[in-house]
Protein backbone atom coordinates (compact mmCIF):
# COMPACT_ATOMS: atom_id res chain seq x y z
CA UNK A 1 0.00 0.00 0.00
CA UNK A 2 3.00 2.25 -0.49
CA UNK A 3 1.26 3.87 -3.46
CA UNK A 4 -1.42 5.27 -1.20
CA UNK A 5 1.11 7.06 0.94
CA UNK A 6 2.59 8.98 -1.95
CA UNK A 7 -0.95 9.78 -2.97
CA UNK A 8 -1.64 11.52 0.31
CA UNK A 9 0.86 14.18 -0.63
CA UNK A 10 0.20 14.43 -4.36
CA UNK A 11 -3.16 12.94 -5.19
CA UNK A 12 -3.26 14.42 -8.69
CA UNK A 13 0.18 13.14 -9.65
CA UNK A 14 -0.69 9.58 -8.78
CA UNK A 15 -3.93 9.63 -10.74
CA UNK A 16 -2.25 10.65 -13.97
CA UNK A 17 0.58 8.19 -13.50
CA UNK A 18 -1.68 5.27 -12.63
CA UNK A 19 -3.98 5.70 -15.58
CA UNK A 20 -1.19 5.91 -18.11
CA UNK A 21 0.56 2.92 -16.62
CA UNK A 22 -2.61 0.83 -16.85
CA UNK A 23 -2.63 1.72 -20.50
CA UNK A 24 1.08 0.92 -20.86
CA UNK A 25 0.59 -2.45 -19.16
CA UNK A 26 -2.19 -3.21 -21.60
CA UNK A 27 0.09 -2.42 -24.54
CA UNK A 28 2.65 -4.88 -23.22
CA UNK A 29 0.24 -7.81 -23.38
CA UNK A 30 0.06 -9.43 -26.83
CA UNK A 31 -3.28 -10.92 -25.81
CA UNK A 32 -4.72 -7.45 -25.28
CA UNK A 33 -3.52 -6.44 -28.75
CA UNK A 34 -5.09 -9.42 -30.47
CA UNK A 35 -8.48 -9.38 -28.77
CA UNK A 36 -8.68 -5.61 -28.44
CA UNK A 37 -7.95 -5.55 -32.16
CA UNK A 38 -10.79 -7.94 -32.97
CA UNK A 39 -13.14 -5.90 -30.80
CA UNK A 40 -12.16 -2.71 -32.65
CA UNK A 41 -12.69 -4.46 -36.00
CA UNK A 42 -16.17 -5.56 -34.88
CA UNK A 43 -17.06 -2.00 -33.89
CA UNK A 44 -15.69 -0.82 -37.25
CA UNK A 45 -17.84 -3.38 -39.08
CA UNK A 46 -20.88 -2.25 -37.09
CA UNK A 47 -20.34 1.41 -37.99
CA UNK A 48 -19.64 0.81 -41.67
CA UNK A 49 -22.18 -2.00 -42.18
CA UNK A 50 -24.00 -0.12 -45.01
CA UNK A 51 -20.72 0.18 -46.96
CA UNK A 52 -19.32 -3.25 -46.15
CA UNK A 53 -22.43 -5.36 -46.76
CA UNK A 54 -22.42 -6.52 -50.41
CA UNK A 55 -26.22 -6.76 -50.66
CA UNK A 56 -29.38 -5.49 -48.96
CA UNK A 57 -29.79 -7.61 -45.79
CA UNK A 58 -33.59 -7.54 -45.77
CA UNK A 59 -34.22 -7.99 -49.47
CA UNK A 60 -35.62 -11.32 -50.61
CA UNK A 61 -33.71 -12.16 -53.77
CA UNK A 62 -35.65 -14.16 -56.40
CA UNK A 63 -32.37 -15.78 -57.48
CA UNK A 64 -31.49 -16.42 -53.81
CA UNK A 65 -33.17 -19.82 -53.75
CA UNK A 66 -32.33 -22.96 -55.72
CA UNK A 67 -34.72 -24.31 -58.36
CA UNK A 68 -36.48 -26.44 -55.73
CA UNK A 69 -36.76 -23.46 -53.37
CA UNK A 70 -33.98 -24.46 -50.98
CA UNK A 71 -31.45 -22.00 -49.51
CA UNK A 72 -28.17 -21.66 -51.42
CA UNK A 73 -25.02 -23.04 -49.72
CA UNK A 74 -21.94 -20.89 -48.94
CA UNK A 75 -19.66 -20.30 -51.89
CA UNK A 76 -22.47 -19.66 -54.35
CA UNK A 77 -21.75 -16.97 -56.95
CA UNK A 78 -23.15 -13.65 -55.75
CA UNK A 79 -23.92 -14.96 -52.26
CA UNK A 80 -20.58 -15.61 -50.59
CA UNK A 81 -21.96 -17.26 -47.44
CA UNK A 82 -25.13 -18.54 -49.08
CA UNK A 83 -28.74 -17.53 -48.49
CA UNK A 84 -31.37 -18.26 -45.84
CA UNK A 85 -34.67 -20.02 -46.45
CA UNK A 86 -36.28 -16.81 -47.72
CA UNK A 87 -33.47 -16.08 -50.16
CA UNK A 88 -31.73 -13.29 -48.23
CA UNK A 89 -27.94 -12.88 -48.33
CA UNK A 90 -26.37 -14.32 -45.17
CA UNK A 91 -23.10 -12.37 -45.30
CA UNK A 92 -25.00 -9.07 -45.46
CA UNK A 93 -27.27 -10.13 -42.62
CA UNK A 94 -24.30 -11.16 -40.48
CA UNK A 95 -22.59 -7.80 -41.13
CA UNK A 96 -25.73 -5.86 -40.23
CA UNK A 97 -26.22 -8.16 -37.24
CA UNK A 98 -22.87 -6.93 -35.91
CA UNK A 99 -24.49 -3.54 -35.63
CA UNK A 100 -27.34 -4.77 -33.39
CA UNK A 101 -24.94 -6.74 -31.20
CA UNK A 102 -22.55 -3.82 -30.76
CA UNK A 103 -25.28 -1.23 -30.18
CA UNK A 104 -26.97 -3.35 -27.53
CA UNK A 105 -23.72 -4.70 -26.06
CA UNK A 106 -22.10 -1.29 -25.65
CA UNK A 107 -25.28 0.77 -25.12
CA UNK A 108 -26.61 -1.42 -22.34
CA UNK A 109 -23.18 -1.49 -20.72
CA UNK A 110 -23.02 2.32 -20.65
CA UNK A 111 -26.42 2.41 -18.92
CA UNK A 112 -25.32 -0.26 -16.43
CA UNK A 113 -22.03 1.49 -15.65
CA UNK A 114 -23.64 4.88 -15.05
CA UNK A 115 -26.30 3.39 -12.76
CA UNK A 116 -23.87 1.03 -11.03
CA UNK A 117 -21.33 3.79 -10.40
CA UNK A 118 -23.87 6.26 -8.99
CA UNK A 119 -25.46 3.68 -6.70
CA UNK A 120 -22.24 1.89 -5.76
CA UNK A 121 -20.25 5.01 -4.94
CA UNK A 122 -23.02 6.61 -2.91
CA UNK A 123 -23.65 3.36 -1.01
CA UNK A 124 -19.95 2.89 -0.26
CA UNK A 125 -19.20 6.53 0.51
CA UNK A 126 -22.14 7.44 2.72
CA UNK A 127 -22.63 4.01 4.29
CA UNK A 128 -25.31 3.53 6.96
CA UNK A 129 -28.94 3.29 5.93
CA UNK A 130 -28.33 4.28 2.31
CA UNK A 131 -25.83 1.45 1.99
CA UNK A 132 -28.11 -1.14 3.63
CA UNK A 133 -31.11 -0.15 1.49
CA UNK A 134 -29.23 -0.19 -1.81
CA UNK A 135 -27.54 -3.50 -1.09
CA UNK A 136 -30.85 -5.14 -0.06
CA UNK A 137 -32.41 -3.96 -3.32
CA UNK A 138 -29.34 -5.28 -5.16
CA UNK A 139 -29.94 -8.67 -3.52
CA UNK A 140 -33.51 -8.65 -4.80
CA UNK A 141 -32.38 -7.87 -8.33
CA UNK A 142 -29.80 -10.64 -8.17
CA UNK A 143 -32.56 -13.11 -7.24
CA UNK A 144 -34.27 -12.63 -10.61
CA UNK A 145 -33.27 -15.00 -13.35
CA UNK A 146 -31.88 -12.17 -15.46
CA UNK A 147 -33.01 -13.37 -18.90
CA UNK A 148 -36.52 -13.97 -17.65
CA UNK A 149 -36.74 -10.52 -16.12
CA UNK A 150 -35.51 -8.89 -19.32
CA UNK A 151 -37.96 -11.00 -21.31
CA UNK A 152 -40.74 -9.88 -18.98
CA UNK A 153 -39.88 -6.20 -19.39
CA UNK A 154 -39.20 -6.44 -23.13
CA UNK A 155 -42.51 -8.24 -23.75
CA UNK A 156 -44.52 -5.74 -21.75
CA UNK A 157 -43.02 -2.75 -23.57
CA UNK A 158 -42.99 -4.38 -27.03
CA UNK A 159 -39.42 -5.34 -28.00
CA UNK A 160 -37.55 -2.58 -29.82
CA UNK A 161 -33.87 -1.70 -29.79
CA UNK A 162 -34.30 1.08 -27.20
CA UNK A 163 -36.42 -1.09 -24.91
CA UNK A 164 -33.88 -3.92 -25.07
CA UNK A 165 -30.92 -1.63 -24.37
CA UNK A 166 -32.73 -0.06 -21.42
CA UNK A 167 -34.02 -3.39 -20.08
CA UNK A 168 -30.61 -5.09 -20.16
CA UNK A 169 -28.86 -1.94 -18.95
CA UNK A 170 -31.18 -0.93 -16.13
CA UNK A 171 -31.78 -4.44 -14.79
CA UNK A 172 -28.06 -5.28 -14.76
CA UNK A 173 -26.96 -2.58 -12.32
CA UNK A 174 -26.61 -4.80 -9.23
CA UNK A 175 -23.29 -6.64 -9.79
CA UNK A 176 -21.46 -3.52 -11.05
CA UNK A 177 -22.74 -1.44 -8.14
CA UNK A 178 -21.40 -4.04 -5.72
CA UNK A 179 -17.93 -3.82 -7.24
CA UNK A 180 -18.07 -0.01 -7.23
CA UNK A 181 -19.19 -0.09 -3.61
CA UNK A 182 -16.37 -2.30 -2.39
CA UNK A 183 -13.78 -0.23 -4.30
CA UNK A 184 -15.24 2.93 -2.74
CA UNK A 185 -15.09 1.37 0.73
CA UNK A 186 -11.36 0.65 0.25
CA UNK A 187 -10.73 4.22 -0.86
CA UNK A 188 -12.92 5.70 1.86
CA UNK A 189 -10.60 4.22 4.47
CA UNK A 190 -7.40 5.20 2.69
CA UNK A 191 -5.10 7.94 3.90
CA UNK A 192 -5.51 10.36 1.03
CA UNK A 193 -9.28 10.48 1.41
CA UNK A 194 -8.84 10.96 5.14
CA UNK A 195 -6.46 13.83 4.33
CA UNK A 196 -9.03 15.34 1.97
CA UNK A 197 -11.68 15.13 4.70
CA UNK A 198 -9.35 16.81 7.21
CA UNK A 199 -8.74 19.61 4.74
CA UNK A 200 -12.47 20.25 4.86
CA UNK A 201 -13.27 19.42 1.23
CA UNK A 202 -16.95 18.99 0.40
CA UNK A 203 -18.43 15.53 -0.24
CA UNK A 204 -19.02 16.36 -3.89
CA UNK A 205 -15.40 17.37 -4.38
CA UNK A 206 -14.01 14.32 -2.58
CA UNK A 207 -16.23 11.96 -4.55
CA UNK A 208 -15.58 13.66 -7.87
CA UNK A 209 -11.82 14.30 -7.51
CA UNK A 210 -10.61 11.47 -5.31
CA UNK A 211 -13.03 8.55 -5.32
CA UNK A 212 -14.52 8.57 -8.81
CA UNK A 213 -11.27 8.54 -10.87
CA UNK A 214 -9.97 5.59 -8.87
CA UNK A 215 -13.19 3.60 -9.01
CA UNK A 216 -13.74 4.25 -12.68
CA UNK A 217 -10.53 2.55 -13.85
CA UNK A 218 -11.58 -0.71 -12.20
CA UNK A 219 -15.17 -0.39 -13.33
CA UNK A 220 -14.21 0.24 -16.96
CA UNK A 221 -12.40 -3.09 -17.02
CA UNK A 222 -15.50 -4.81 -15.69
CA UNK A 223 -17.44 -2.82 -18.28
CA UNK A 224 -15.46 -4.52 -21.05
CA UNK A 225 -16.41 -7.91 -19.61
CA UNK A 226 -19.99 -6.66 -19.36
CA UNK A 227 -20.05 -5.85 -23.09
CA UNK A 228 -19.30 -9.51 -23.81
CA UNK A 229 -21.96 -10.65 -21.36
CA UNK A 230 -24.52 -8.26 -22.82
CA UNK A 231 -23.85 -9.42 -26.38
CA UNK A 232 -24.54 -12.93 -25.11
CA UNK A 233 -27.74 -11.81 -23.36
CA UNK A 234 -29.00 -9.92 -26.38
CA UNK A 235 -28.49 -12.89 -28.67
CA UNK A 236 -30.19 -15.22 -26.18
CA UNK A 237 -33.09 -12.80 -25.94
CA UNK A 238 -33.49 -12.77 -29.72
CA UNK A 239 -33.13 -16.53 -29.84
CA UNK A 240 -36.12 -16.76 -27.47
CA UNK A 241 -38.06 -14.39 -29.71
CA UNK A 242 -37.99 -11.32 -27.47
CA UNK A 243 -35.35 -9.47 -29.48
CA UNK A 244 -35.74 -6.69 -32.04
CA UNK A 245 -38.72 -7.52 -34.28
CA UNK A 246 -38.11 -9.25 -37.64
CA UNK A 247 -36.81 -8.70 -40.27
CA UNK A 248 -34.04 -6.99 -38.24
CA UNK A 249 -30.84 -8.94 -38.97
CA UNK A 250 -29.78 -10.31 -35.57
CA UNK A 251 -27.37 -13.13 -34.75
CA UNK A 252 -29.50 -14.78 -32.07
CA UNK A 253 -32.64 -14.66 -34.19
CA UNK A 254 -30.68 -16.07 -37.15
CA UNK A 255 -29.65 -19.09 -35.03
CA UNK A 256 -33.31 -19.63 -34.12
CA UNK A 257 -34.39 -19.39 -37.76
CA UNK A 258 -31.59 -21.72 -38.77
CA UNK A 259 -32.55 -24.36 -36.20
CA UNK A 260 -35.73 -25.09 -38.13
CA UNK A 261 -33.83 -25.54 -41.39
CA UNK A 262 -31.14 -27.74 -39.82
CA UNK A 263 -31.84 -30.73 -42.04
CA UNK A 264 -31.32 -28.93 -45.35
CA UNK A 265 -29.11 -25.96 -44.49
CA UNK A 266 -26.96 -26.48 -41.35
CA UNK A 267 -24.83 -23.39 -42.14
CA UNK A 268 -27.84 -21.20 -41.32
CA UNK A 269 -27.59 -21.87 -37.58
CA UNK A 270 -23.83 -22.41 -37.54
CA UNK A 271 -22.46 -19.13 -38.95
CA UNK A 272 -24.23 -16.62 -36.67
CA UNK A 273 -23.19 -18.70 -33.64
CA UNK A 274 -19.53 -18.36 -34.69
CA UNK A 275 -20.01 -14.58 -34.86
CA UNK A 276 -21.48 -14.48 -31.34
CA UNK A 277 -18.63 -16.57 -30.01
CA UNK A 278 -15.92 -14.43 -31.62
CA UNK A 279 -17.51 -11.23 -30.32
CA UNK A 280 -17.95 -12.57 -26.78
CA UNK A 281 -14.45 -14.07 -26.60
CA UNK A 282 -12.74 -10.91 -27.82
CA UNK A 283 -14.52 -8.55 -25.43
CA UNK A 284 -14.12 -10.96 -22.51
CA UNK A 285 -10.40 -11.55 -23.02
CA UNK A 286 -9.68 -7.89 -23.67
CA UNK A 287 -11.58 -7.09 -20.47
CA UNK A 288 -9.57 -9.77 -18.66
CA UNK A 289 -6.29 -8.20 -19.73
CA UNK A 290 -7.52 -4.77 -18.73
CA UNK A 291 -8.64 -6.05 -15.35
CA UNK A 292 -5.24 -7.63 -14.79
CA UNK A 293 -3.54 -4.36 -15.73
CA UNK A 294 -5.63 -2.35 -13.24
CA UNK A 295 -5.16 -4.90 -10.49
CA UNK A 296 -1.38 -4.92 -10.74
CA UNK A 297 -1.26 -1.12 -10.92
CA UNK A 298 -3.46 -0.55 -7.92
Amino acid at each position, binding site marked *: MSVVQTTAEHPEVRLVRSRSSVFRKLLHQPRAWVFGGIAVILIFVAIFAPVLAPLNPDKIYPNGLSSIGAPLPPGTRGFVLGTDDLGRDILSRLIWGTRISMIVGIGATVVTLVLGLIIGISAGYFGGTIDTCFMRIADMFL*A*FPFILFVVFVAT*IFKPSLTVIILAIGVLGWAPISRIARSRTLDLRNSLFVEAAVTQGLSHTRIIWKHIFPNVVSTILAYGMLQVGTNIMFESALS*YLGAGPPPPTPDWGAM*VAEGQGAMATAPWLFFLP*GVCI*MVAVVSFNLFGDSWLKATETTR
Partner: protein
Amino acid sequence: MTRYIVKRVLLMLLTIWGVVTITFVVGFLMPANPARTIAGVHATAATVEQISKLYGFDKPLSVRYLRFLWNLVHLNVGMSYHYHTSAMRIVLSRLPATLYLGVFAVLTELIIGFPVGVYMAHKKDTWIDTFLSSGLVGGAAMPTYWFGIILIYVVAFKAGLLPIGGDNGWTSLVLPALTYGITGAAYYARILRSSLADILQQDYVRTAHAKGLRRFLITRKHVIRAGLLPFMTQLGMDMAYTLSGLIILEQVFDWPGVGNLVVSGIQYIDVPIILATTIVTATLVVVLNFLVDISYMWLDPRLRHNPS
Protein backbone atom coordinates in the same frame (compact mmCIF):
# COMPACT_ATOMS: atom_id res chain seq x y z
CA MET B 1 -27.70 -20.19 15.79
CA THR B 2 -31.52 -20.28 16.04
CA ARG B 3 -31.47 -16.49 16.12
CA TYR B 4 -29.43 -16.45 12.96
CA ILE B 5 -31.81 -18.80 11.17
CA VAL B 6 -34.85 -16.75 12.23
CA LYS B 7 -33.13 -13.62 10.99
CA ARG B 8 -32.34 -15.28 7.68
CA VAL B 9 -35.95 -16.46 7.27
CA LEU B 10 -37.24 -12.92 7.86
CA LEU B 11 -34.73 -11.57 5.38
CA MET B 12 -35.84 -14.18 2.87
CA LEU B 13 -39.49 -13.14 3.25
CA LEU B 14 -38.47 -9.50 2.81
CA THR B 15 -36.60 -10.34 -0.38
CA ILE B 16 -39.55 -12.29 -1.78
CA TRP B 17 -41.82 -9.35 -1.01
CA GLY B 18 -39.38 -7.02 -2.78
CA VAL B 19 -39.21 -9.28 -5.82
CA VAL B 20 -43.00 -9.44 -6.02
CA THR B 21 -43.31 -5.68 -5.68
CA ILE B 22 -40.73 -5.03 -8.40
CA THR B 23 -42.67 -7.28 -10.79
CA PHE B 24 -45.91 -5.52 -9.89
CA VAL B 25 -44.37 -2.11 -10.58
CA VAL B 26 -42.96 -3.25 -13.92
CA GLY B 27 -46.32 -4.77 -14.83
CA PHE B 28 -48.06 -1.56 -13.88
CA LEU B 29 -45.79 0.48 -16.15
CA MET B 30 -47.07 -1.51 -19.13
CA PRO B 31 -47.99 1.05 -21.81
CA ALA B 32 -50.64 -1.07 -23.53
CA ASN B 33 -54.08 -1.33 -21.95
CA PRO B 34 -54.22 -4.88 -20.52
CA ALA B 35 -57.99 -5.03 -20.97
CA ARG B 36 -57.49 -4.30 -24.67
CA THR B 37 -54.91 -7.09 -24.91
CA ILE B 38 -57.31 -9.57 -23.32
CA ALA B 39 -60.31 -8.46 -25.36
CA GLY B 40 -58.45 -8.53 -28.67
CA VAL B 41 -58.07 -5.95 -31.40
CA HIS B 42 -61.63 -6.17 -32.70
CA ALA B 43 -63.48 -5.75 -29.38
CA THR B 44 -65.72 -2.72 -28.88
CA ALA B 45 -64.96 -0.01 -26.33
CA ALA B 46 -67.81 -1.29 -24.14
CA THR B 47 -66.33 -4.79 -24.00
CA VAL B 48 -62.93 -3.41 -23.10
CA GLU B 49 -64.48 -1.38 -20.29
CA GLN B 50 -66.37 -4.42 -19.06
CA ILE B 51 -63.20 -6.50 -18.98
CA SER B 52 -61.38 -3.65 -17.29
CA LYS B 53 -64.01 -3.70 -14.54
CA LEU B 54 -64.00 -7.49 -14.30
CA TYR B 55 -60.22 -7.63 -13.81
CA GLY B 56 -60.18 -4.52 -11.59
CA PHE B 57 -57.97 -2.44 -13.92
CA ASP B 58 -60.10 0.63 -13.18
CA LYS B 59 -59.33 0.60 -9.44
CA PRO B 60 -56.69 2.92 -7.90
CA LEU B 61 -53.11 1.68 -7.71
CA SER B 62 -53.09 0.98 -3.99
CA VAL B 63 -56.19 -1.20 -4.23
CA ARG B 64 -54.74 -3.07 -7.17
CA TYR B 65 -51.47 -3.63 -5.33
CA LEU B 66 -53.18 -4.98 -2.21
CA ARG B 67 -55.45 -7.16 -4.31
CA PHE B 68 -52.40 -8.40 -6.20
CA LEU B 69 -50.68 -9.37 -2.95
CA TRP B 70 -53.86 -10.97 -1.58
CA ASN B 71 -54.33 -13.02 -4.74
CA LEU B 72 -50.70 -14.00 -4.75
CA VAL B 73 -50.97 -15.45 -1.26
CA HIS B 74 -53.66 -17.66 -2.78
CA LEU B 75 -51.28 -18.49 -5.65
CA ASN B 76 -53.27 -16.53 -8.17
CA VAL B 77 -51.77 -14.00 -10.58
CA GLY B 78 -54.69 -14.01 -13.00
CA MET B 79 -55.87 -15.97 -15.99
CA SER B 80 -53.47 -16.75 -18.80
CA TYR B 81 -54.52 -14.70 -21.86
CA HIS B 82 -53.86 -17.67 -24.08
CA TYR B 83 -54.73 -20.81 -22.08
CA HIS B 84 -57.66 -19.21 -20.22
CA THR B 85 -56.90 -20.95 -16.92
CA SER B 86 -54.94 -19.88 -13.85
CA ALA B 87 -51.48 -18.84 -15.04
CA MET B 88 -49.88 -19.80 -11.74
CA ARG B 89 -51.37 -23.30 -11.90
CA ILE B 90 -49.95 -23.87 -15.39
CA VAL B 91 -46.51 -22.65 -14.36
CA LEU B 92 -46.46 -24.80 -11.21
CA SER B 93 -47.51 -27.85 -13.19
CA ARG B 94 -44.56 -27.30 -15.55
CA LEU B 95 -42.05 -26.66 -12.77
CA PRO B 96 -41.18 -30.31 -11.90
CA ALA B 97 -40.00 -30.97 -15.46
CA THR B 98 -37.70 -27.95 -15.28
CA LEU B 99 -36.30 -28.98 -11.89
CA TYR B 100 -35.77 -32.54 -13.11
CA LEU B 101 -33.79 -31.27 -16.08
CA GLY B 102 -31.99 -28.73 -13.87
CA VAL B 103 -30.72 -31.35 -11.41
CA PHE B 104 -29.23 -33.45 -14.20
CA ALA B 105 -27.81 -30.43 -15.98
CA VAL B 106 -26.04 -29.12 -12.87
CA LEU B 107 -24.80 -32.59 -11.92
CA THR B 108 -23.29 -33.06 -15.38
CA GLU B 109 -21.70 -29.65 -15.09
CA LEU B 110 -20.09 -30.58 -11.77
CA ILE B 111 -19.03 -34.06 -12.87
CA ILE B 112 -17.19 -32.57 -15.84
CA GLY B 113 -16.05 -29.30 -14.28
CA PHE B 114 -14.76 -30.53 -10.92
CA PRO B 115 -12.05 -32.96 -12.03
CA VAL B 116 -10.90 -30.60 -14.79
CA GLY B 117 -10.59 -27.73 -12.29
CA VAL B 118 -8.67 -29.84 -9.76
CA TYR B 119 -6.36 -31.17 -12.46
CA MET B 120 -5.68 -27.68 -13.82
CA ALA B 121 -4.90 -26.29 -10.37
CA HIS B 122 -2.21 -28.96 -9.99
CA LYS B 123 -0.79 -28.24 -13.45
CA LYS B 124 -0.94 -24.47 -13.08
CA ASP B 125 1.28 -22.52 -15.50
CA THR B 126 2.26 -25.54 -17.56
CA TRP B 127 1.37 -25.89 -21.24
CA ILE B 128 -1.48 -28.27 -20.37
CA ASP B 129 -3.00 -25.56 -18.20
CA THR B 130 -2.62 -22.91 -20.91
CA PHE B 131 -4.12 -25.26 -23.48
CA LEU B 132 -7.09 -26.20 -21.29
CA SER B 133 -7.58 -22.58 -20.18
CA SER B 134 -7.97 -21.30 -23.71
CA GLY B 135 -10.35 -24.17 -24.43
CA LEU B 136 -12.41 -23.17 -21.40
CA VAL B 137 -12.55 -19.51 -22.47
CA GLY B 138 -14.00 -20.64 -25.78
CA GLY B 139 -16.39 -23.02 -24.04
CA ALA B 140 -17.66 -20.31 -21.71
CA ALA B 141 -18.23 -17.93 -24.64
CA MET B 142 -20.28 -20.45 -26.61
CA PRO B 143 -23.97 -19.62 -26.63
CA THR B 144 -25.57 -22.61 -24.89
CA TYR B 145 -28.36 -22.84 -27.43
CA TRP B 146 -25.94 -22.81 -30.34
CA PHE B 147 -23.85 -25.62 -28.86
CA GLY B 148 -27.06 -27.51 -28.17
CA ILE B 149 -28.14 -27.22 -31.79
CA ILE B 150 -24.71 -28.45 -32.93
CA LEU B 151 -25.07 -31.50 -30.65
CA ILE B 152 -28.59 -32.10 -31.99
CA TYR B 153 -27.28 -31.87 -35.54
CA VAL B 154 -24.31 -34.18 -35.05
CA VAL B 155 -25.56 -36.72 -32.49
CA ALA B 156 -29.30 -36.81 -33.05
CA PHE B 157 -29.77 -35.82 -36.67
CA LYS B 158 -26.66 -37.12 -38.47
CA ALA B 159 -25.82 -40.12 -36.28
CA GLY B 160 -29.39 -40.77 -35.14
CA LEU B 161 -28.24 -41.91 -31.71
CA LEU B 162 -30.56 -39.85 -29.49
CA PRO B 163 -33.93 -38.13 -29.82
CA ILE B 164 -33.92 -34.62 -31.31
CA GLY B 165 -36.15 -33.12 -28.64
CA GLY B 166 -39.21 -33.47 -26.44
CA ASP B 167 -39.49 -35.76 -23.45
CA ASN B 168 -39.33 -39.47 -24.37
CA GLY B 169 -37.75 -40.97 -21.27
CA TRP B 170 -34.14 -40.73 -20.11
CA THR B 171 -32.61 -40.66 -23.60
CA SER B 172 -34.14 -37.21 -24.08
CA LEU B 173 -32.24 -36.02 -21.05
CA VAL B 174 -28.76 -36.85 -22.33
CA LEU B 175 -28.27 -34.11 -24.92
CA PRO B 176 -29.66 -31.19 -22.86
CA ALA B 177 -27.63 -32.27 -19.83
CA LEU B 178 -24.47 -32.57 -21.93
CA THR B 179 -25.07 -29.21 -23.58
CA TYR B 180 -25.51 -27.49 -20.28
CA GLY B 181 -22.79 -29.53 -18.60
CA ILE B 182 -20.06 -28.80 -21.13
CA THR B 183 -20.72 -25.06 -21.49
CA GLY B 184 -21.19 -24.61 -17.73
CA ALA B 185 -18.27 -26.82 -16.70
CA ALA B 186 -15.90 -24.42 -18.41
CA TYR B 187 -16.99 -21.69 -16.06
CA TYR B 188 -16.74 -23.73 -12.87
CA ALA B 189 -13.44 -25.33 -13.80
CA ARG B 190 -11.93 -21.84 -14.10
CA ILE B 191 -13.25 -20.81 -10.69
CA LEU B 192 -12.06 -24.01 -9.05
CA ARG B 193 -8.65 -23.73 -10.70
CA SER B 194 -7.95 -20.28 -9.29
CA SER B 195 -9.25 -21.00 -5.78
CA LEU B 196 -7.45 -24.35 -5.48
CA ALA B 197 -4.23 -22.94 -6.89
CA ASP B 198 -4.18 -20.48 -3.99
CA ILE B 199 -4.76 -23.23 -1.46
CA LEU B 200 -1.98 -25.37 -2.93
CA GLN B 201 0.46 -22.58 -1.97
CA GLN B 202 -0.61 -22.60 1.68
CA ASP B 203 1.80 -23.55 4.43
CA TYR B 204 -0.35 -26.38 5.75
CA VAL B 205 -0.31 -28.05 2.36
CA ARG B 206 3.47 -27.85 2.33
CA THR B 207 3.52 -29.29 5.84
CA ALA B 208 1.35 -32.17 4.68
CA HIS B 209 3.79 -32.82 1.85
CA ALA B 210 6.72 -32.58 4.24
CA LYS B 211 5.30 -35.15 6.61
CA GLY B 212 4.99 -37.53 3.67
CA LEU B 213 1.25 -37.65 3.10
CA ARG B 214 0.25 -39.10 -0.24
CA ARG B 215 -0.67 -36.50 -2.86
CA PHE B 216 -4.14 -37.91 -3.42
CA LEU B 217 -4.90 -37.68 0.30
CA ILE B 218 -3.60 -34.12 0.50
CA THR B 219 -5.80 -33.11 -2.38
CA ARG B 220 -8.83 -34.82 -0.93
CA LYS B 221 -8.49 -33.88 2.73
CA HIS B 222 -6.74 -30.53 2.71
CA VAL B 223 -7.16 -28.91 -0.66
CA ILE B 224 -10.63 -29.79 -1.92
CA ARG B 225 -12.25 -29.46 1.48
CA ALA B 226 -10.92 -25.95 1.91
CA GLY B 227 -11.80 -25.01 -1.65
CA LEU B 228 -15.32 -26.35 -1.42
CA LEU B 229 -16.79 -23.43 0.50
CA PRO B 230 -16.08 -20.62 -1.99
CA PHE B 231 -17.16 -23.01 -4.70
CA MET B 232 -20.50 -23.65 -2.97
CA THR B 233 -20.96 -19.89 -2.56
CA GLN B 234 -20.48 -19.43 -6.26
CA LEU B 235 -22.89 -22.24 -7.05
CA GLY B 236 -25.49 -20.65 -4.78
CA MET B 237 -24.98 -17.19 -6.23
CA ASP B 238 -25.35 -18.54 -9.75
CA MET B 239 -28.73 -20.10 -9.04
CA ALA B 240 -30.58 -17.32 -10.84
CA TYR B 241 -28.18 -17.63 -13.74
CA THR B 242 -28.67 -21.40 -13.85
CA LEU B 243 -32.44 -20.99 -14.12
CA SER B 244 -31.98 -18.51 -16.97
CA GLY B 245 -29.84 -21.08 -18.73
CA LEU B 246 -32.45 -23.78 -18.24
CA ILE B 247 -35.13 -21.63 -19.83
CA ILE B 248 -33.04 -21.32 -22.99
CA LEU B 249 -32.08 -25.00 -22.88
CA GLU B 250 -35.73 -26.04 -22.81
CA GLN B 251 -36.44 -23.96 -25.86
CA VAL B 252 -33.60 -25.64 -27.79
CA PHE B 253 -34.71 -29.18 -26.94
CA ASP B 254 -38.44 -28.53 -26.81
CA TRP B 255 -38.47 -29.77 -23.22
CA PRO B 256 -41.96 -29.43 -21.69
CA GLY B 257 -40.96 -27.22 -18.77
CA VAL B 258 -41.35 -23.62 -17.65
CA GLY B 259 -38.97 -22.21 -20.27
CA ASN B 260 -41.04 -23.55 -23.09
CA LEU B 261 -44.05 -21.86 -21.54
CA VAL B 262 -42.23 -18.53 -21.37
CA VAL B 263 -41.50 -18.59 -25.09
CA SER B 264 -45.15 -19.16 -25.91
CA GLY B 265 -45.86 -16.38 -23.41
CA ILE B 266 -43.65 -14.05 -25.46
CA GLN B 267 -45.44 -15.00 -28.67
CA TYR B 268 -48.94 -14.40 -27.31
CA ILE B 269 -47.89 -11.44 -25.09
CA ASP B 270 -49.32 -13.56 -22.27
CA VAL B 271 -48.35 -11.28 -19.36
CA PRO B 272 -49.78 -13.43 -16.51
CA ILE B 273 -47.74 -16.44 -17.65
CA ILE B 274 -44.50 -14.46 -17.75
CA LEU B 275 -45.40 -12.75 -14.47
CA ALA B 276 -46.08 -16.08 -12.77
CA THR B 277 -42.85 -17.59 -14.11
CA THR B 278 -40.81 -14.60 -12.94
CA ILE B 279 -42.29 -14.75 -9.45
CA VAL B 280 -42.00 -18.53 -9.12
CA THR B 281 -38.41 -18.73 -10.32
CA ALA B 282 -37.27 -15.72 -8.29
CA THR B 283 -38.85 -17.19 -5.15
CA LEU B 284 -37.17 -20.49 -5.93
CA VAL B 285 -33.80 -18.74 -6.20
CA VAL B 286 -34.28 -16.96 -2.87
CA VAL B 287 -35.27 -20.16 -1.09
CA LEU B 288 -32.39 -22.14 -2.61
CA ASN B 289 -29.95 -19.41 -1.63
CA PHE B 290 -31.26 -19.61 1.90
CA LEU B 291 -30.69 -23.36 1.94
CA VAL B 292 -27.14 -22.89 0.64
CA ASP B 293 -26.48 -20.37 3.42
CA ILE B 294 -27.76 -22.76 6.04
CA SER B 295 -25.71 -25.62 4.62
CA TYR B 296 -22.54 -23.59 5.27
CA MET B 297 -23.01 -24.18 8.95
CA TRP B 298 -22.91 -27.85 8.29
CA LEU B 299 -19.87 -27.54 6.01
CA ASP B 300 -17.89 -25.09 8.10
CA PRO B 301 -18.05 -25.77 11.87
CA ARG B 302 -16.61 -22.32 12.66
CA LEU B 303 -19.83 -20.70 11.46
CA ARG B 304 -21.99 -22.58 13.97
CA HIS B 305 -20.67 -20.44 16.77
CA ASN B 306 -20.39 -17.14 14.99
CA PRO B 307 -22.69 -17.27 11.99
CA SER B 308 -22.51 -13.62 10.96
